């Protein structure tokens, strides 16, 4: 089973197979391009389309409703490819391929008036060295910060002549300045200008030139901004990474030895939380909650940094909302954990004071069963308090 497309050819409707449709479209585009230099090119192409409609009409019948690619091939063969047409057509002085193209004859360094932001220096150098002028501009911008860049540019601007005549422009690109090349070059220029609005040449080139210089300036700034975005993006990325790693370490990393007032303790967040604020089983929730509510913002930072540095946009539409929901969940969890912690904190009562170390051990009221942290195993003691409290009563 094949896909069928509907085409309007010279006012008649035809059904074509997908590949036939594409081939026909390409053929018509080629014809249009070939005749674009002639007077009445639209008329010519519409005449040919009319002929195509006639030929299609003959091919279609009750039995066969769709034009196949074989039909299109046959029709192209009958009508002829543009090259064949120009062979037969009288009056075509222009050779199908310029004979001297590609010969690099004495490439000369000029400033390019068609590719300039300020003086056309970078454009000309780009043409001479066959590099994209953008890279040369980047180099000059960097050199600008080394103060010799500006001077260098000015010197080059004064010294290198601007390519004004077509012959000079050809020399700039390294093409031989002979008649056929010049003619081709002029034609290309006119076609490039003709694109937006093909009216009188004199006034139009001025307007189009101004539009082109303005769009060149826009390009320049957008390139500049892109570079800034990349640098800033990298910085944000690094900051986010550092924050995230530090955060993860503080949550899951091994206990850290902290010395305070001649006493050293082992410290990590979950245990400190457990000892002081919440019941052991809430630790898991607390960790998760912290991960979500703090970790996610750090991840977001990293992601934004990466987006700016590597110039990509997320293709997953739901990424934003999902991230936000996860973060919100983390906050809510945190909220509950805190409430539970407050309740538990109130439920504590001092159990005993260890005489040697002055640590206070607390009893947790879990479902009515009193438990304590073990005094025999000092490793299990994760307290941070250094004060020796008075026991009331």
């Amino acid at each position, binding site marked *: 089973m094949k896909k069928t497309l509907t085409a309007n050819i010279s*006012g008649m409707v035809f059904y074509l197979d997908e590949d036939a449709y594409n081939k026909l479209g390409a053929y018509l585009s080629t014809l249009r391009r070939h005749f674009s230099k*002639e007077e009445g090119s639209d008329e010519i*192409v519409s*005449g040919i389309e009319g*002929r195509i409609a006639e030929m299609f009409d003959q091919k279609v019948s009750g039995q066969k409703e769709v034009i196949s690619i074989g039909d299109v091939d046959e029709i192209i063969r009958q*009508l*002829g490819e543009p090259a064949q*047409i120009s062979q*037969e057509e009288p009056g075509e002085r222009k050779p199908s391929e310029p004979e001297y193209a590609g010969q690099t004859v004495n490439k000369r360094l000029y400033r390019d008036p068609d590719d300039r932001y300020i003086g056309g220096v970078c454009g000309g150098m780009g043409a001479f060295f066959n590099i994209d002028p953008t890279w040369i501009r980047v180099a000059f911008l960097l050199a600008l910060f080394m103060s010799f860049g500006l001077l260098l540019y000015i010197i080059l601007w004064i010294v290198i002549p601007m390519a004004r005549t077509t012959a000079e422009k050809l020399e700039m690109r390294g093409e031989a300045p002979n008649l056929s090349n010049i003619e081709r070059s002029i034609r290309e220029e006119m076609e490039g200008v003709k694109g937006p609005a093909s009216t009188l040449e004199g006034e139009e080139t001025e307007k189009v030139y101004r539009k082109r210089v303005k769009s060149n300036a826009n390009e320049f700034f957008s390139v500049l901004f892109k570079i800034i975005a990349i640098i800033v993006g990298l910085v944000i990325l690094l900051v986010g990474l550092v924050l995230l790693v530090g955060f993860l370490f503080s949550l899951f990393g091994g206990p850290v030895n902290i010395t305070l007032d001649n006493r050293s303790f082992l410290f990590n967040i979950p245990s400190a939380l457990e000892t002081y604020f919440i019941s052991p089983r809430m630790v898991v929730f607390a960790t998760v909650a912290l991960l979500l509510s703090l970790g996610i913002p750090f991840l977001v930072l990293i992601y934004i940094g990466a987006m700016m540095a590597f110039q990509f946009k997320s293709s997953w539409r739901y990424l934003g909302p999902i991230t936000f929901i996860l973060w919100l969940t983390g906050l809510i969890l945190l909220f509950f954990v805190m409430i539970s912690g407050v309740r538990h904190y109130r439920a504590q009562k001092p159990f005993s004071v260890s005489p040697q170390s002055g640590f206070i051990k607390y009893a947790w009221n879990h479902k009515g069963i009193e438990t304590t942290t073990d005094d025999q195993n000092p490793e299990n003691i994760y307290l941070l308090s250094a004060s020796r409290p008075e026991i009331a009563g």
Partner: protein
Amino acid sequence: MNLENTKAQMRKGVLEFCILSLLANKEAYASELIQTLKESKLLVVEGTIYPLLTRLKNDGLLSYRWEESTGGPPRKYYFVTPLGEKFLEELRKTWNDLAEAVNFATSSS
């Protein structure tokens, strides 16, 4: 390939003349012209005729009117203008002279 090229060159020279002559004899659609020209081997690919017709029309030697056809869009019906007739006369003379000259130059006797 060179022979083909030369043949094409020869045909090129007379194509416009033949089109004008045919149309002076009888007005026709583009597709009818194609038919005749293909039969007389003057045309290899049909596409050639369209730029030619347009050029002759833009030069004022031809003109057309729209003819409704059954079961299809209206088509251009080409005919020769008075200017075209004069042009054709000139071409006919040139052709006859040319034919004489060539026959003379290529005669084996």
